[in-house]
């Protein structure tokens, strides 16, 4: 390779680090990947920081402070491609539960000296602040899909990551549908695939870690979940987990909250 290797940077915002760990977990592949890409800024792996601009920025985490809202602008300016990784970065993460509660009250409960805490009242995805070139879903992301995104970037092609339901993976694997055969509540039909239908293969319903699929009919699924016994109150909690603020789940959560209040 005559041309200089593209520079990779990994950035962290409000998150648990699980998605970055997925990158570290690539171990063998990561070493060989360094023949093709220069890991220029990845604090979780190395203290050495090569200044930008960067060819590919992987961004983990959501925006929960003013400082971060400014920081993401600078990162965008110094990144040719910006890819967000994980539920926090793509939809606001589990911390977006604060969007539906009183942040000050949360702070009072959690911190001994709340006065030191400066935080926004919302947790928002990176795409609410800057242009994002590709969103990789999951809580946490899948290692195979992450490598696929990096490989696709290096060869200038579209990542082979289908936008389809978790059910498609259940059927390809031959997993017996837990909803049809046992009446177990499952978010799979409206959830983006990527996990390989993990929970249904262990006899659990899907929790929606990968967020809504492209045409998620939450109303249609809710009607079915009510028929297996879920109440509006429970449905609020079904939709408000790792991807609570993803638009389709956000709307569904609010709708059930309203219905619950009028019940």
């Amino acid at each position: 390779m005559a041309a200089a290797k593209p520079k990779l940077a990994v950035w962290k915002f409000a998150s648990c680090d699980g998605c970055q760990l997925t990158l570290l977990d690539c171990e063998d592949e990561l070493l060989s990947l360094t023949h093709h890409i220069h890991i220029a800024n990845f604090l979780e792996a190395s203290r050495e920081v090569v200044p930008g601009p960067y060819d590919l920025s992987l961004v983990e985490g959501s925006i929960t402070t003013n400082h971060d809202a400014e920081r993401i602008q600078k990162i965008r300016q110094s990144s040719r491609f910006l890819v967000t990784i994980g539920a926090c970065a793509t939809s606001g993460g589990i911390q977006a539960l604060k969007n539906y509660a009183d942040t000050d009250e949360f702070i009072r409960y959690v911190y001994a000296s709340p006065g030191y805490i400066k935080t926004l009242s919302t947790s928002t995805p990176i795409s609410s602040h800057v242009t994002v070139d590709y969103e990789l879903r999951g809580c946490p992301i899948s290692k195979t899909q992450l490598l696929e995104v990096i490989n696709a970037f290096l060869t200038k092609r579209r990542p082979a990551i289908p936008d389809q339901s978790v059910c498609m993976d259940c059927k390809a694997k031959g997993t017996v549908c837990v909803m049809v055969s046992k009446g177990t509540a499952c978010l799979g039909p409206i959830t983006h695939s990527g996990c390989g239908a993990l929970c249904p293969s262990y006899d659990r319903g899907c929790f929606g870690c990968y967020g809504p699929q492209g045409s998620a009919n939450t109303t249609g699924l809710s009607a079915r979940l009510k028929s297996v016994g879920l109440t509006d109150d429970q449905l609020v909690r079904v939709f408000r987990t790792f991807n609570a603020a993803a638009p389709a789940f956000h709307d569904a959560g609010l709708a059930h909250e309203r219905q619950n209040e009028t019940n």
Partner: protein
Amino acid sequence: MKNPEASIPATHPSPYFVRFDIEGLKRLIETLKQEGYEVLGPTVRDGAIVIEPIESVSQLPCGVGDEQSGGRYRLTQRSDRSRFGYAVGPTSWKRFLFPPNRLLWRATQHERGFSVETPPVDSQRRAFVGVRGCDLAAIRIQDRVFCGGANPDPDYVSRRKQTFIVAVECGSPVQTCFCTSMGTGPAIGDGFDIRLTEIPDGENPYYLGLAGSEYGAQLLSQIDAIQVNESEFAERNAILASAAAQITRHLDPDHARAVILENPEHSRWDEVASRCLTCGNCTQVCPTCFCSTVDDVTDLTTGVAERSRRWDSCFTMEHSHVHGGAVRRSPRSRYRQWLSHKLGSWWEQFGTAGCSGCGRCIVWCPVGIDLTEEVAYLATKRDAPPEDAP
């Protein structure tokens, strides 16, 4: 159009029509294994009867029945020890003829240029034990798709040639079956190597085995069996007549075809779209749905690029993605595409309907959307076509 071969033959049909008990069935499976076949058959797993490789007759469900309705499947206990006392489950045989994932080719980079290898077509002999009438019809439908035309699929053709079919007639249909409408069951006329009819008979079920090919006759002749007599044949006919009488779901394929093609703008499409989750389950369980897509994957670290094929569905947005975006963006257009292909334009393309009447799409749809109900609605409550229909 009914399949005339599937009606119950009035006379005693063949010299290779023999009666044997569970020991005979055991022997048949053993013989198939000795002949180098991977034997695939029904077995209970995770609360359902699925089709998987089986080693012996003991893995077949014993005394297990089923209840099926829209979006619901449950196993039940039967009062006898039948091994085939249930209807079709979530697995269809297409899984073994048109597998969900298949590598098409692999390119490897060298110092100068690259080389491409194509994996060999599959040549494993497989015996399908327990193919029902609807599924036999579905295999015929897929044969037209994959073996006909100018570009047959070499892997499908090879797998199909290596397949030995042990068909089993249906004595216990469920509420979602409509093979009688499609002329595909519960009796089976041809298209098998061996056809079995199970006579439950309490603790000791027995089997009437009819050869449908020379090889089938050869294998049957190795079983300790006696010729079927008139009363056993009458028993079989009675079981099939009673099974047919239990089937209440109905769809007239000729009528369905006309109704669907005449109503592209019916408001029912919007109504069904409000319930449809666009999850694709219906297409994945359907034994005739054949859509696939290809993924190209590169792996820079080893200098290898691969193209593989996987099952796709007209319910995914990406399925109709062309330059600039997806053609069928609305769930309405996707459900309509599915139903109007299956029951309408399939005729123009392949000369039959694309449906065998197995009912899987009704059962395994998480919200129980029922194509027969949709067609019935379109037929009785026709909408006036809107003036500005696109």
